[in-house]
């Protein structure tokens, strides 16, 4: 999943002038884009002070917090969209967080990297280890990436939690994008991004 590809899909989904919360917003580049092109009222959440400083320098409002400790700072439905992009893999309690996202926001947007993707399986099969690409940084004992979830497992979780998929994009290797699921997608899809709502 290339950030640019995910960012532009998220941008298409975000309604102009909506209120957006971006969890694990990094340096605020996605929010900057949404503020500029969608005129959203956005706030980012970050745990790292370096990123806080970068967000502020980009003119992005940012809140320093550990999102694993919940979103109790925000009232129910205070946002139109709550985004969790390229962050799910570091979350200790993903179910709790997804529920929180759909408490404070009308919709949740979550991107998922598919651990079931064929290349990851091959790496495990031949090398007996998780690839650096999946782990992003560090070694097994100090990488922040602690969740290795397949597309299949993630979709199962959503079903269990009574969450509806409003829209989705499935990323194929070499740049292809699908809007709906396909045969063997748990093997062939690199990652996906979902717009979610609580079942009504």
């Amino acid at each position, binding site marked *: 999943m290339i950030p640019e590809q995910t960012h532009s899909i998220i941008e298409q989904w975000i309604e102009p002038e909506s209120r957006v919360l971006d969890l694990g917003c990094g340096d605020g580049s996605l929010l900057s884009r949404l503020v500029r092109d969608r005129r959203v*009222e956005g*706030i980012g959440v970050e745990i790292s*002070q370096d990123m*806080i*400083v*970068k*967000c*502020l*320098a*980009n*003119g992005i*409002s*940012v*809140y*320093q*917090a550990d999102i694993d400790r919940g979103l109790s*700072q925000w009232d129910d439905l205070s946002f139109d969209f709550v985004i969790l992009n390229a962050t799910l893999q570091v979350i200790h309690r993903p179910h709790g967080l997804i529920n929180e996202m759909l408490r404070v926001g009308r919709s949740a947007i979550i991107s998922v990297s598919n651990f079931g993707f064929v290349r990851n399986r091959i790496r495990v099969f031949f090398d007996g280890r998780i690839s650096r690409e999946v782990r992003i940084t560090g070694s097994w004992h100090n990488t922040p990436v602690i969740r290795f979830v397949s597309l299949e497992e993630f979709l199962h979780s959503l079903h269990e939690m009574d969450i509806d998929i409003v829209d989705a994009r499935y990323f194929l290797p070499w740049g292809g994008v699908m809007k709906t699921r396909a045969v063997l997608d748990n093997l062939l899809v690199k990652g996906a991004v979902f717009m979610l709502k609580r079942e009504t």
Partner: protein
Amino acid sequence: MDSPVQTSTLHLDRPFRLDSGDIIRGLTVAYETYGEPNSARDNAILIEHALSGSAHAAFFHRGDPKPGWWDAMIGPGKAFDTDRYFVICSNVLGGCNGTSGPSSRNPATGKPYALSFPPVSIRDMVEVQRMLLAHLGIERLRSIAGGSMGGMQALQFFADYPSLFDSFICIASTMRHSAQQIAFNEVGRRAVMADPRWNGGDYYGDVPPEGGLSVARMIGHITYISEKMMQEKFGRLRKGKDDRAVFRPSFEVEHYLDYQGIAFVRRFDANSYLYITSAIDNFDLVSSISGANRCRGENRARGTGIDAMRKKKGLVISFTSDWLYPTQQSHDIVRFFSGLNASVSFAEIETDHGHDAFLTDIEGQTLIIRSFLDALIP
């Protein structure tokens, strides 16, 4: 700016009416400014001092080796960059460093006011500063910033006059004191009043209640730093062990507090301590901007101010080891102003230095504040 700075004084000709309805005649306001206003006159930043601060926020006074109380934060290339911003700081109403307070001379009697000085509020403090801004010809400020009681003033001023400011910066502060915070202040006030030299506030021209005031300051200093810092700095170290007198300070921490207490009574008025700590305890931002008998500010009732706060930016900073103004109180500030549609950022700086970190932890604050101010440029 190598040349020394000095404190200026504004004399208000007309009577100043406090929020309580009381009147002060012949009000004086001590202030300092650093840097220059730009041609649009929109680069001013108002700095608010804490309980024991003064108008002397930065640079040096002639012949004084000690710079102003926030010199590490204000100056060329610093958090509040005086090459880019016109920085203003004034002494608070009720204080004892040039602005009218209980130690000032009452023009009606020719004697110090003492307890005949009317009680003051945080809102009164910022109203005085509004007069000062008018005098300086500043109609719009890039920001207003302060720590501790300075943060309370920043919140009050911003909430009362949102259209005056582009942003606010509130550090290690709260919208209202908790029972514990009031309790500590009350013990400090009782220490002053229990000193026979206090004499019902009437001690001017005599020895002031130094014993009581220094005890009050000692209590304050315990709350300003963290337990960990105190332990690391002093532990159980002793000093002057062959002193035979009983109950003489022997632990390092005792000497430290003693020193802090004595240093404070040399520069601070005991009655000002009572007036200002009371103003802090009585401060309650939410009720003050929503109260029925509100007579100040742009918007008389809560709700009508919301549009003015839209697109305004706020920055709230807390410190992990500040147990006097814990992080939760900063969360509450963010929540409240976000509810009024301001766009508020929050950072919690990791430090062992406790509440005093707003005066000592310069690097983290500088990075955060500079980035925040840079992005405000219209």
